[in-house]
């Protein structure tokens, strides 16, 4: 630690605001064994229960194999070649914007992102990027008034150990799947939200306000708990494409909604998809699950997935409470060499539970994507309802879209509906737009945004506008 008292004060001030959790962190050498897990836990100053949990997860992970059923292709990942704890910035990243893929910079220009923000997103080492700390402080005060906890999960482990111990791993257990087990053993940081009984969270919570922690993203862990009668809307990600020196991202998100609680979770995922040949793109292997634990609770996932080289992601709802409601609205775009296997699971356990799935897949270039969805109606789930709508839009002749719906019904009173369509972006639609004076690009953008409308309607207003713009930029030049 520096001897300069001013610097020390600054460091402490930042720490108190909870936006920078590691100050003098360094990088652990590549490789993973029990000592790595212990070292991570120690550096974070975690209590014993956390270390024990991580170790259990690690030991379980050792006996697991990476899933192979997904419709994506990539070379095997060497887990011993990854460093599981690294300094937050400046290591291995580009030194200036000159070293960044020009195509990426062009996209930033089109989205109108200021230059300093571009640097941060592209992973260029910079000092003070945003004035986000002061903005965020104001937010924190307002949240504290309402009793809402919104902080880094490593902070929550220390400050709210009871809540963490009670809920962490209660939706996605450490044994759940290969990537979730790995995440449980080595997760770096993430977000914790707790909304107390009867509280309506006074604002949209967004990771954007915590952007200076973005570098904790490789094994991110998010836990959101909405207590009885509370409600919260959470936004994750941002529309600008983000670069990261870590190729593998294996995040876990757990949502818990108790009686009458509502959680709305919106994601705009735009990780770097790699260059034209797909080199250097992010592998995004995410486990997201919400547990409608209480009666009349509601969880809704909305996602716009445009980035990453490979996406493997199934935000799901366990409808445990009677009369609980689950929803999944998704737009996934694959272009260039991108691959996505994404969808959802709706597990109906309680009585009178209902779920809605709206999935819109767009494939361009040589993009490949699959919708994979499970609707399971358990034996005691009387009067369960599901409606699934799953549409694919193809642009050009080299892309592919697949749909893998799984429907398991064990209760005769259930009603499930599945609708699926695949269409090519019509030459006639495009010609119609152009014959009215619209440029080809405006035409494509209009047709695609029209296709995605039902999903965009679910996004918070500001996000929806950004998402539309993002989609237009992503698909520019995709036709013809």
């Amino acid at each position, binding site marked *: 630690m520096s001897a300069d008292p001013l610097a020390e004060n600054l460091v402490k001030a930042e720490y108190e605001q909870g936006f920078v959790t590691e100050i003098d962190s360094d990088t652990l050498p590549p490789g993973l064994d029990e000592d790595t897990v212990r070292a991570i836990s120690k550096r974070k100053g975690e209590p014993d229960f956390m270390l024990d949990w991580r170790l259990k997860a690690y030991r379980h992970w050792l006996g697991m194999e990476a899933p192979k059923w997904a419709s994506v292709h990539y070379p095997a990942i060497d887990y011993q070649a990854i460093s599981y704890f690294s300094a937050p910035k400046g290591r291995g990243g580009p030194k200036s914007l000159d070293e960044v893929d020009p195509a990426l910079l062009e996209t930033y220009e089109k989205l109108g992102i200021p230059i300093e923000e571009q640097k941060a997103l592209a992973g260029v080492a910079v000092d003070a990027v945003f004035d986000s700390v002061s903005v965020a402080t104001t937010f924190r005060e307002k949240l504290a008034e309402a009793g809402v906890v919104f902080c880094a999960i490593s902070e929550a482990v220390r400050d709210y150990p009871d809540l963490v111990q009670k809920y962490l791993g209660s939706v996605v257990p450490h044994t759940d799947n290969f990537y979730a087990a790995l995440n449980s053993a080595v997760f770096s940081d993430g977000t914790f939200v707790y909304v107390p009984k009867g509280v309506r969270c006074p604002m949209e919570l967004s990771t954007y306000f915590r952007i200076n922690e973005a570098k904790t993203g490789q094994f991110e862990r998010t836990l959101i708990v909405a207590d009885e009668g509370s409600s919260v809307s959470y936004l994750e990600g941002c529309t600008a494409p983000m670069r990261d020196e870590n190729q593998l991202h294996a995040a876990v998100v757990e949502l818990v909604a108790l009686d009458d609680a509502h959680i709305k979770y919106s994601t705009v995922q735009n990780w770097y998809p790699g260059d034209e040949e797909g080199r250097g793109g992010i592998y995004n292997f995410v486990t997201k699950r919400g547990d409608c634990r209480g009666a009349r609770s509601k969880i809704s996932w909305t996602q716009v997935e445009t980035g990453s080289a490979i996406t493997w992601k199934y935000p799901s709802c366990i409808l445990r409470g009677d009369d609980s409601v689950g929803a999944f609205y998704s737009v996934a775009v694959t272009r260039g060499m991108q691959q996505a296997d994404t969808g959802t699971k709706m597990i109906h356990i309680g009585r009178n539970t209902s779920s809605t799935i709206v999935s819109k897949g767009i494939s361009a270039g040589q993009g490949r994507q699959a919708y994979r969805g499970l609707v399971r109606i358990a034996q005691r789930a009387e009067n369960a309802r599901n409606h699934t709508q799953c549409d694919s839009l193809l642009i050009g002749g080299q892309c592919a879209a697949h749909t893998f719906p799984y429907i398991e019904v064990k209760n005769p009173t259930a009603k499930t509906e599945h609708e699926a369509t695949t269409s090519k972006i019509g030459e006639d639609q495009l010609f119609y737009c152009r*014959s009215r*004076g*619209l440029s*080809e690009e405006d035409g494509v953008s209009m047709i695609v945004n029209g*296709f995605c409308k039902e999903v965009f309607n679910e996004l918070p207003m500001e996000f929806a506008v950004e998402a539309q713009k993002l989609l237009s930029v992503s698909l520019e030049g995709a036709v013809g």
Partner: protein
Amino acid sequence: MLSVKGLKASVEGREILRGLDLEVGAGEVHAIMGPNGSGKSTLAHVLAGREGYEVTGGRILLEGEDLLDPAPEERARKGLFLAFQYPVELPGVNNTYFLKAALNAVRKARGEPEIDAVSFLRLMREKLKVLHLDDSLLKRAVNVGFSGGEKKRNEIFQMALLEPKLAVLDETDSGLDIDALRLVADGVNALRSPDRSVVLVTHYQRLLDYIEPDRVHVLVHGRILRSGGKELALELEEKGYGWIEADQEGEAA
């Protein structure tokens, strides 16, 4: 206004238009009639610049400027409008949004400022009234769930908004009942002006009872074989197309 000389065009290697000549003066309404497969719709699509229609000879001028080279959207911005025989559905695309974007693209090309929301709404309501179209149309997605008649009227409504110099109506009368036909005709007549020309592509004389053409042309095998006044349409109605073809063969022999 429109000058077509020796126009030849093929679709998938098959020659459809075989040296077509057509002169349409400013403010005139011309009807193109002809049997199935004579090339009427091909002419409409070639004028609008649809892909897949290969022009192998001849030229098209709009107000003395080449019309063949520009992309479809540029032709639209120069003042060409095609009313589709089968208007296309755009799911999720709001009709008002679509029309405003189209109008602004055309206005921009004319060097006019973008229209503001209030003026646009007023303009739309005014034009809707002419075509007896319901306000609710503005809130719906482009052509989605429209009846056949509504789709055709929506085309004319778009034309009214975009105020083209040359409107090409591709079998706009097909599939319309008599009331809808009258409304469409009223809409077209309301748009007749000394600086706007109309090309009506049609099978039947019936539309011409409501829209009186200055000239009638008969298109057979990709060429205009006969032109005349509106009385030609009546003659066709009576005799069919056979006699023109027979006539032609007689002349050739």
